[in-house]
């Protein structure tokens, strides 16, 4: 391509944003972006625009289908649509309330009281979350459909890492990636719900620190519940209401404990 410092073409910058570059070109563009603030601004703006579009239209993904579409698919709505939506909302509200109460009860004894400095892996987990969650085309390194995903990450992390199934709560496992954490390997699993929101579960080996209860940490609008259950440390990160994130963290904890 061209010499460093020179502006990139629009086509190059867009191809970079959209994950259309070969690996070696990607590295080169990244180098040149570092030397070209105007292009780096463009990358930032377009990523923000994409994120804003997903947020703006996310409601459509979660909405129930209109009756005429259901009829075409041979699915008859059980109630007239308006009523169905209202009843579903009431039922959902009740369930959330109940689940919240149950989780609150179960977790109260677990949540630690004394504030302590955050272990560094929590910061790393939130950092990795904020970097990979906005990715449209390459959010994960290995997709969930590939059988070796968990085996590979467990091998690399050097401990029995598992990807909990959160589909009952509406979160689908997308896949995962291997990350460096202070020179040691860490695993990140990513989940997505029907509304396009994403969660990541960050796991690394931890033999130095003591086991902890759930703790909550927040930075730049991202929240994370983290805990240590030796030999592993976990951080569940997302941009969700705290109660919702806690409910998921509790499900993760419950599943991993039963192994």
């Amino acid at each position, binding site marked *: 391509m061209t010499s460093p410092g020179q502006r990139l073409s*629009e*086509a190059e910058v*867009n*191809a970079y944003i*959209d994950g*259309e570059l070969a690996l070696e070109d990607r590295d080169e563009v990244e180098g040149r972006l570092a030397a070209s603030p105007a292009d780096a601004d*463009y990358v930032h*703006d*377009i990523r*923000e*625009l*994409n994120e*804003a*579009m*997903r*947020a*703006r*239209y*996310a409601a*459509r*993904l*979660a*909405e129930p*289908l*209109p009756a*005429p*579409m259901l009829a*075409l*698919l*041979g*699915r008859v709505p059980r109630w007239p649509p308006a009523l169905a939506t209202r009843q579903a909302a009431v039922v959902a509200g009740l369930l959330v309330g109940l689940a919240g109460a149950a989780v609150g009860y179960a977790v109260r004894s677990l949540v630690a009281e004394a504030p302590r400095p955050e272990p560094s892996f929590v910061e790393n987990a939130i950092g990795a979350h904020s970097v990979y969650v906005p990715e*449209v*085309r390459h959010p994960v390194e290995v997709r969930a459909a590939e059988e070796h995903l968990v085996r590979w990450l467990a091998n690399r992390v050097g401990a029995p890492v598992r990807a909990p199934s959160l589909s009952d709560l509406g979160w689908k496992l997308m896949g995962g990636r291997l990350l460096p954490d202070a020179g040691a390997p860490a695993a990140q699993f990513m989940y997505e719900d*029907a509304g396009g929101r994403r969660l990541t579960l960050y796991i690394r080996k931890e033999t130095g620190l003591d086991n902890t209860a759930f703790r909550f940490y927040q930075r730049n609008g991202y929240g994370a519940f983290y805990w240590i259950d030796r030999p592993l440390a976990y951080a569940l990160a997302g941009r969700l209401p705290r109660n919702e994130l806690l409910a998921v963290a509790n499900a993760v904890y419950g599943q991993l404990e039963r192994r």
Partner: protein
Amino acid sequence: MPSRREAVAAEIPRLRRYARALLGDDGEADDLIQDTLERALARLEQWRDGENPRKWLFSILHNLYVDGLRRKSRRPPHVGLDSVGIEQSAPPADGASGRDLDQALQLLSGEQRQVVLLVGLEGLSYAETAEVLDIPVGTVMSRLARGRGRLRVLMDYEGGDKGGRAALRRVK
């Protein structure tokens, strides 16, 4: 073909999202999806095994969208509020940035909007987008660059102070 029907059904929420963003109107978007669904279900056997259902469905949607545009353009020219509407209306109040983006998208040409949405919102590759729209990849790239550049100006990203980003710049 129950499994194909299921695969089609699973894509509907995404199709609705795209149609809503493309057309800027809930009712029109659902009409388009209803037609898309009807046509898809009538032609399930044309969907080749192994072909990505999303791409196939977006292609059907696109063809119907273009048919709809042609029908509209055959009607007597209609110069009313529709063609000037947004440009004369005041920018929405602060905090309505969602609507700003929606309006800004509607100010792009349809061709630019399709590409900006298929790539940026739906995550299609350039090659998939080119197939869906039946245009060369080079055209995808040039429309994308123009559309994103324009959107960036409309959303006040470019140049201006970053604090005022959410505001839609008034169009002269």
